């Protein structure tokens, strides 16, 4: 459907621009808000990929809880703006190393995109011949729940222990006196 293509490009553009601004601009609060926008676009992409449940989970957990946590920390610390490269003493924070870092990052980008693009024929060969309706039924909650609790049941239980450990750890680390 042509509508899907337009939506893909719109959401993709929002994600890329928002991510670039997250790493590119000074104020930490704006970075957090732009990342939230990026996650909302990602949720849109999940809907296009026939994963509506995952899209809503992304909004609830990532954009609705994790980012709130980031926002709280930024506000509590009253995070000062990052120092501009001009007024730092140490040598390896200056302009030169930053430019080298940017070049390396661009090299990584080009390499990744090129390797993905080159194997596109291989990817097309892998694509199964499932019909559109089957694909839509894939992302249903029933299907995800079934696989989650049978094939991935152990991982599910381990994840719950992991969350408990993270909760206790976060409380202990952030306390003033234990």
């Amino acid at each position, binding site marked *: 459907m042509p509508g899907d293509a337009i939506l893909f490009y719109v959401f993709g553009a929002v994600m890329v621009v928002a991510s670039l601004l997250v790493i590119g601009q000074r104020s930490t609060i704006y970075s957090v808000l732009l990342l939230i926008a990026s996650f909302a676009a990602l949720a849109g992409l999940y809907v296009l990929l026939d994963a509506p449940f995952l899209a809503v989970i992304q909004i609830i957990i990532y954009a609705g809880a994790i980012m*709130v946590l980031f926002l709280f920390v930024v*506000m509590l610390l009253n995070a000062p703006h990052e120092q501009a490269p001009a007024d730092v003493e140490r040598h390896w924070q200056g302009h030169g190393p930053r430019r080298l870092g940017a070049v390396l990052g661009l090299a990584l980008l080009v390499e990744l995109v090129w390797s993905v693009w080159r194997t596109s024929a291989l990817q097309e060969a892998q694509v199964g011949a499932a019909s559109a309706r089957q694909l839509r039924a894939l992302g249903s909650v029933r299907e995800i729940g079934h696989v989650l609790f049978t094939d991935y049941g152990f991982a599910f239980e381990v994840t719950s222990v992991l969350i408990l450990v993270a909760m206790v750890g976060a409380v202990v680390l952030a306390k003033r006196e234990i």
Partner: protein
Amino acid sequence: MTAVLIAQIALIFVVFTALLMSAAVMVYAERKLAAGFQQRYGPYLVGPKGLMQPFADVLKLLFKEELRPKGADSRLFYLAPIIAATAAFSAFAVVPFGGETTLFGLLPEPIKLQVADVNVAILVVFAIASMSVYGIVLAGWSSNSKYSLLGALRSASQMISYELSYGLALASVLVVAGSLSITEIVEAQGGSWLGILPRWFVVVQPVGFIVYMIAAIAETNRAPFDFPEAEQELVAGYHTEYSSMSFAMFFLAEYINMVTVSAVATDLFLGGWQGPWLPASLGWIWFLLKMSALLFFYIWARWTLPRYRYDQLMQFGWKILLPIAVLNLIATAAGVIYFAR
């Protein structure tokens, strides 16, 4: 442009206008009921029995000067009420308020009285509710004032704490109904036992209903959980520095959140638009009646109960309400498995 498409687009406008009017009705109802509970008259000068009072309020707010404190970050300052109002309105997009109707025979095929029928509708409501936290947090931060920031942080942490119990109460309904689509949940409440007692989930899940209503009151920052907005404690919390239309947006967002939460409670626990004597296409009348009963309860709670202190509020949310919600979910799941055999 088929007739059905036109009807669906018109439905969007009808819902939007209805939500705006409901906020106005709620303002009036709140003041009149508060007056009744406090044995005084309430507004009676503007229009017959004071019915034009909300419009007078809106006019006053429109003509007020739009202020912004000096150190306030202007982009975030104006973004916050927009987020709050948008989240409030969007949450109602997936809530059905009536059965299928052909608009008295005008349409060739029936349309659902729901702006968007998504089959993960409950989660969408929950997701948008968790987005409304940002309106509050950004309002507090961008006002550059200590009352606002404190109020905003307290309000936000209260909202995310009670979201857990809210979600668990929703989950217990899901377990009983077996579907995430609100339309299907309402239809699962059709029929009755012994011809008298309707199969509403409030009968099957009384604890879930109580947990849901308490969590909903805390989520919408209403008394007795409105410490962050308390006049005596924090001036007006996160919307201290706002005036005119920005303040009106927060005000509007709060009332529409109340309406949305009551609408979801009506659909999930009170059988939605089903009721005796009326055909399914006029079910929205029953829906309005049930929703109004819940909103009356909301207003009643505000003007009767004293306010919780912030630490009492958090203790209640984490140490009492959350365990009850978890136990309710486990008991519901056990019950469903046992009785399904």
